[in-house]
């Protein structure tokens, strides 16, 4: 397995408050990594740095061996659009768009024609048990349905890395596990690397490996032990 994305000795502060204090983590291609830690430990900040949303104050972020932290905002924006997928705690679907348009959004933003994008997006509805909901708007979907739509949107462009920040945090246990089951199956089929931020052990148990973030540093017990 080769490392696809990596943080090396990353620091980041929100004003005077240090969120990351030398965080390092490497994720293999196709791996599903759970990033765990208590509230305020820096796990979401680490995810945002890895995804090129935040630029570290020091240290390096490498994706496919290329320094993400040294890219311009435009380059990072392209990277996020073309190579990365995202799923957040509250689906964050665009309320004005139908479910299928929401799923097609990453394709449309990448310049794929609507005629190609919408059928490709529609194909995800059967796959995720969302048949018949294509034309609904986000307000007409249950929490679990909306999160599955968000998952389809995160994966439709076949990203190399999917960043999932507490993707089941707003769902009940059973619905949350159904979403995780679909996420893992879809990611494995596509060979997508997944970086999953969660504070729930039951959700982390869907990953191949976990790391703990504590006080802005990463502790990776499995790697240390091996």
């Amino acid at each position: 397995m080769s490392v696809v994305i990596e943080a090396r000795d990353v620091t980041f502060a929100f004003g005077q408050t240090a969120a990351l204090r030398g965080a390092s983590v490497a994720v293999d291609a196709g791996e599903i990594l759970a990033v765990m830690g208590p509230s305020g430990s820096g796990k979401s900040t680490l995810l945002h740095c890895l995804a090129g949303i935040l630029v570290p104050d020091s240290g390096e972020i490498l994706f496919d061996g290329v320094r993400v932290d040294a890219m311009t905002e435009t380059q990072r924006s392209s990277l996020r659009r073309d190579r990365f997928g995202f799923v957040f705690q509250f689906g964050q679907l665009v309320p004005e768009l139908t479910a299928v348009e929401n799923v097609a959004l990453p394709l449309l933003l990448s310049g794929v024609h609507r005629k190609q994008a919408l059928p490709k997006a529609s194909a995800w509805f059967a796959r995720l048990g969302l048949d018949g909901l294509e034309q609904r708007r986000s307000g007409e979907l249950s929490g679990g349905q909306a999160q599955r739509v968000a998952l389809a949107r995160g994966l439709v462009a076949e990203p190399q890395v999917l960043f999932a920040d507490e993707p089941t945090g707003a769902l009940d246990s059973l619905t949350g596990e159904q979403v995780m089951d679909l996420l893992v199956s879809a990611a494995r089929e596509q060979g997508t690397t997944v970086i999953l931020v969660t504070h729930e052990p039951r959700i982390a148990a869907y990953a191949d490996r976990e790391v703990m973030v504590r006080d802005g540093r990463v502790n990776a017990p499995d790697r240390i032990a091996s």
Partner: protein
Amino acid sequence: MSVPLTLLGLLEREPSHGYDLKRDYDAFFGRGKPLPFGQVYSTLSRLARDGKVVISDVAPGSGPDRKRYIITDVGATEVEQWLTQPVDPEPHLQTVLFAKVVLALMLDRPAAEYLDTQRSAHLRRMRELTEIKRAGSLVDALLADHGLYHLEADLRWIEMTGARLDALRKEVRP
């Protein structure tokens, strides 16, 4: 797991031979720990002696497997009582985890490292159970969930204890 009560419960569904009872027990409750035939028949003998089952007929042929067992009213009442009574909630106040943490603190050993190692082991087991759940039947999932929720409770305790180690150290090493 109470073998006699579980066998009685299986008999309440329908009269069965010992072989059928063993097969169903292993399928639903054995989980890699099959019930020995000897234990099936010795349990059924005791249940018959105590009037909880009767032998309905003995088919021609040899071997104990030819006997067909039927639950009696006494047996059915016992199953009914068992199913309606809650299991004693076990507080697990003196677990090995607890003892290890307190001893590590007393002996000035790295308790936080122990908790990290234990967390990792728990999560590894939770991954195994999650795989069983994803690949198996609904019955497998139900059993795996039971294990997962217990492990998760331990993990919460591990997190809480980890956050209190400094205070605990002062208490056990005055």
